[in-house]
């Protein structure tokens, strides 16, 4: 094991190198650029033989990754906000063509207003594209996530692309210790890719992406849906194997922190959950029974695990660093939907926090805790959605 002090971006670059990625086609955008710069550095100094394709836009980056992946190569790229939005069409293509591409998205606010800071709306806006989504709490999870994503994506029953999502600047540019296993052990965990199909089998030529009339299209989409469902099982297996090999278990799609006897639980994704865990410790010392539920995988959505959590808790404060205009916070909306047809009915409130990178602190969590505990005690919800950080 080697412990390196790296930024989240460098952790992603090292993970791509250690995952023996073969092709990287990418376009720079703040705050992702240092991922691909680091990869370019590895290639330039001979540490890696990744084939780097500098393209003219993110749309081309994903298109090039699709082409490479369709020949059987392990492909990787990275982007953020506007770049992710630009490649939207190609995201649909990658999942429809069942290609296990892995991409790191650095969560950044969508323009306008122009912003480079942490916000989850960019990746959540792509939740319908058929990509799996993993939200990293810290740099270690960025590194581990990339390795696991390849294994899950390339599984014979999954064959779907995955994005590993990290916070702008809070993770991407902040240095922390990341434990990197020896290359041989990673190779054992992640053997070479066995592609479902390849364009370079010239004895059996194929054309990918054929036209399908209404008589046939339906069944292909069902297959993607089934693969996503199956992915839940594969994610848990791979997460468990990761824990057995490298000491960090990821078998839970929702990581539970001190939730067993909690009256209320804070639920959210990404780096803000690190802050929440700190606050949970502070609140517990003050005698409050609170816990944190960190949703690691947003797609496929961990409905069963959420139900198990929601059965045993009276209140859930959902922290959304995102918003879907005309509706509400996205995690809140999906979590409510999942529980609707079940008998788990905790009081749930949506706190819109940290949009556009506004600082989300332990003090904020304490205020939310007070609010939520009062609501649970009275049994009455005042308002479903609270724009918590609004200047008023």
């Amino acid at each position: 094991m080697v412990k390196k002090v790296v930024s989240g971006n460098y952790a992603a670059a090292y993970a791509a190198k250690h995952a023996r990625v073969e092709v990287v086609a990418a376009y720079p955008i703040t705050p992702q650029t240092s991922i691909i710069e680091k990869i370019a550095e590895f290639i330039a100094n001979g540490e890696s033989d990744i084939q780097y394709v500098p393209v003219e836009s993110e749309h081309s980056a994903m298109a090039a990754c699709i082409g490479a992946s369709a020949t059987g190569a392990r492909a990787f790229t990275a982007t953020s906000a506007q770049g992710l939005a630009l490649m939207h069409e190609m995201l649909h293509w990658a999942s429809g063509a069942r290609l296990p591409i892995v991409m790191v998205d650095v969560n950044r606010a969508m323009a306008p207003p122009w912003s480079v800071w942490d916000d989850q709306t960019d990746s959540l806006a792509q939740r319908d594209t058929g990509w799996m989504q993993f939200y990293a709490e810290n740099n270690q999870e960025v590194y581990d996530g990339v390795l696991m994503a390849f294994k899950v994506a390339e599984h014979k029953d999954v064959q779907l692309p995955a994005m590993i999502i990290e916070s702008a600047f809070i993770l991407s540019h902040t240095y922390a210790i990341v434990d990197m296993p020896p290359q041989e052990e990673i190779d054992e965990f992640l053997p070479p890719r066995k592609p479902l199909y390849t364009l370079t089998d010239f004895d059996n030529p194929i054309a990918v992406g054929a036209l399908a009339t209404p008589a046939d299209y339906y069944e292909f989409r069902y297959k993607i849906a089934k693969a996503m469902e199956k992915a839940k099982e594969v994610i848990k297996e791979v997460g468990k194997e990761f824990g057995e090999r490298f000491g960090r278990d990821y078998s839970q799609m929702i990581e539970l922190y001190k939730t067993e006897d909690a009256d209320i639980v804070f639920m959210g994704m990404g780096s803000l959950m690190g802050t929440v865990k700190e606050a949970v410790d502070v609140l517990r010392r003050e005698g409050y029974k609170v816990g944190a539920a960190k949703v690691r995988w947003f797609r496929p959505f961990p409905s069963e695990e959420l139900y198990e959590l929601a059965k045993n808790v009276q209140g859930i404060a959902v922290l959304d660093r995102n918003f879907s205009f005309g509706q509400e916070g996205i995690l809140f909306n999906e979590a409510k939907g999942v529980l609707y047809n079940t008998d788990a009915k905790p009081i749930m409130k949506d706190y819109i926090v940290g949009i556009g990178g506004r600082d989300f602190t332990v003090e904020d969590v304490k205020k939310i805790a007070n609010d939520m505990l009062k609501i649970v005690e009275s049994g009455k919800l005042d308002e479903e959605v609270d724009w918590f950080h609004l200047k008023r």
Partner: protein
Amino acid sequence: MKNTLFGEKLEEAKPIVFKKVEEYPELPISLGTTLVNKTGDWRTFMPVINEEKCVKCYICWKFCPEPSIYIKPDGYPAVDYDFCKGCGICANECPTKAIEMIREEK
């Protein structure tokens, strides 16, 4: 006139019909033959080659985009009316004006 462009392949061509989701491939890959799709019924005008004017330069054969012009054993070009869409490029390119586009009555 016997169509020698595709020969037995055309006779053997059958549409692939999937009855259950399990029969489908995992993703949309081009399968089977498109010979079952007789695009000839798209056309309004059909090319007719006048062999008396034809000098066997084969420009029509080369330019046909489908391709729906083939060379008969006697050396004259012929149109495969199963697939000819009636675009008129052959008539347009023929240097001796041996091809006429005739309005087809169905």
